């Protein structure tokens, strides 16, 4: 087994670990240290880091948790990640966390925030209102004060006093983290036969569970090893995956997409880890720099509304840059933001003549026969005469 394969293995284990052993380990090494979870898609992790806490990215129970309690609390027509997150709480999987942050991404997740609050009164649970009106100048002022409010809450529940220099350091670390992820994506875009989508996915998602310093080293090492990796190009079409920004598709599904004859040249898996298209500025008031970056420097996303730069234009541009043959929409069942955006994405793709396919998934799925048929047909329709 090569070092690279070992790294993928370690990352895959981190992603699959519902007991958050890595978090437990960190807490053992940092007596009194607090771990703060955050529900997708994005959270200002720099602030948590600067308060001396460990940010932990939550992303549902995947296919490793069967629901025994949460169905009674969230009914039909609600996405899986909301239910598995509550289930994790009710089954004590979240006991290593001292708090959980939510943000304004959708109605189900927001209600989950308050349901968790009722069921876990000792947990620090907060809801961040990330603005939906970046066109207004007031939005940066508002978000700055929202971040300051959150900072005070974190300090009150045991975080250290956040100083400007702590926060600047955190910004630098995460800027580095996002640069590395961007490099990884750039590598795959150039040489998709050398880095499979599931590999880059576990590499990135592993960062949800370890300190950013550690994740940076993992990524640096992986990039170095990748630069000497050898492999033979396959006969595959190039696709961009869109829509899996919150609930994550099962690993087997990502593998299936590639096995059906696709190179995944870009995707929005765990998009919160590479939320900004460029570095957060290191000068000036760092809180304001974070707020201003959310408003002016963020990637397009179905959970962020920016009417200065429509999301469908963003997708079209992404597909063009990736020299994609097609777009595959992987949408979590009952994900309303993704359902809605699909309509306008579809309109744009039809206008520019880029083929697309829509497939709905659930994180807890085990069998993929229907999807396999659809994805294979799609590939066949692009490949055969």
């Amino acid at each position, binding site marked *: 087994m090569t070092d690279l394969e070992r790294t993928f293995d370690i990352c895959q284990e981190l992603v699959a670990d519902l007991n958050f052993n890595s978090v437990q380990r960190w807490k053992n090494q940092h007596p009194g240290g607090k771990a703060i979870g955050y529900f997708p898609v994005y959270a200002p992790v720099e602030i948590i880091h600067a308060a001396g806490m460990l940010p932990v990215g939550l992303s549902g129970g995947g296919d490793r948790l069967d629901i025994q309690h949460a169905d009674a609390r969230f009914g039909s027509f609600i996405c899986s990640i909301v239910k598995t997150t509550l289930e994790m709480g009710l089954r004590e999987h979240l006991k290593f966390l001292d708090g959980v942050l939510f943000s304004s991404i959708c109605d189900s997740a927001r209600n989950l925030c308050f349901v968790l609050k009722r069921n876990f009164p000792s947990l620090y649970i907060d809801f961040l209102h990330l603005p939906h009106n970046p066109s207004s100048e007031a939005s940066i002022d508002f978000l700055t004060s929202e971040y300051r409010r959150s900072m005070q809450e974190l300090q009150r529940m045991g975080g250290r006093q956040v100083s400007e220099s702590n926060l600047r350091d955190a910004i630098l670390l995460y800027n580095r983290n996002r640069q590395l992820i961007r490099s990884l994506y750039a590598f795959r875009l150039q040489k998709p036969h050398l880095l499979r989508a599931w590999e880059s996915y576990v590499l990135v998602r592993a960062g949800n569970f370890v300190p950013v310093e550690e994740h940076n080293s993992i990524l640096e090492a992986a990039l170095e090893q990748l630069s000497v990796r050898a492999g033979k190009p396959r006969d595959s079409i190039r696709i961009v995956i869109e829509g899996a920004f919150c609930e994550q598709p099962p690993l087997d599904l990502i593998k299936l997409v590639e096995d059906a004859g696709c190179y995944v040249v870009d995707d929005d898996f765990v998009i919160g880890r590479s939320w900004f298209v460029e570095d957060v500025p290191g000068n000036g008031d760092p809180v304001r720099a974070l707020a201003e970056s959310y408003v002016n420097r963020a990637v397009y996303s179905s959970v962020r509304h920016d009417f200065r730069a429509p999301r469908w234009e963003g997708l079209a541009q992404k597909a063009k840059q990736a020299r994609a043959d097609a777009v595959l929409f992987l949408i979590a*069942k009952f994900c309303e933001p993704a359902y809605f955006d699909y309509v306008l994405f579809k309109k744009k793709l039809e206008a520019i003549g880029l083929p697309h396919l829509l497939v*709905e998934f659930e994180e807890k799925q085990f069998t993929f026969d229907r999807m396999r*048929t*659809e994805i294979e*047909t799609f590939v066949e*329709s692009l490949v*055969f005469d």
Partner: protein
Amino acid sequence: MQLVAGIDCGSGFTKAVIVAQNSAPECSVLGKGKAKSGINMEEAAFAALNDALKDAGVARDQVRYVATTGFGRYGVGFRDIQITEITSGARGAHHLFPTSHCVLDIGGQSTRAITMTDTGKVRSFKTNDKCAAGSGMFIARAAKYLEISIEDVGGLSLQATHPQPISSVCAVLAESEIINHVSAGVSVENILRGIHDSLADRAVGMLKRVGMEGEVTFIGGVARQSGIVKALEEKLGTKLNVPPDCEYVCALGAALLGHKRLIAKETAVSQPHAS
């Protein structure tokens, strides 16, 4: 003569078709066969193939290439290539009705709407999602509940006077609706026609979503039920192409695509230095 077999491994039955290219540019069908799908896909495929060989009057070793399709396509070890039933269905339908650019396929487990290019290549498609009570299995189950045989469904449906629509989009709820209709004393004919109407509604919705235009070819086992054909024709306001061997269309398409691959392969072998 290049014999190619296409085998469609469906959930209920496995169907095989043997095609050959004679002097004409187009392939022609030599024989077809059928076997019940069981737990062992390979066995069923073998049985269906033998049945087709017998029908064609040719020997197994004359078959040069085997293409499988359908949900059990990977379960057949002796295949040369596997193709999805959507790709093969479109190709088969195009062969039978070259001017048709749109296919509706209602099988045991699923419903599909497909549009294709002039050459029979899939352009876009849609399959029924989670909660569509739109498959043959659903009708079969309703028939069982109503205590009538599946062969009688089509005819009875045509005798309806006041069709009782099934509004639910979930198969489970739709079954409940049928039960409630029975409880309320609605006649079997009206229930069946209601099922056909609702199925047709849903199918028309799918056809519209894939961008249907021109004539529609209706394939799959359910195409045998005259009630749904009538319901569809009424809603679309046009005649449907219904091939007599509607359940063999995917097998035929697979055979045709297999044939194409075989020719391509042999061309490549005979011209090794061609770029």
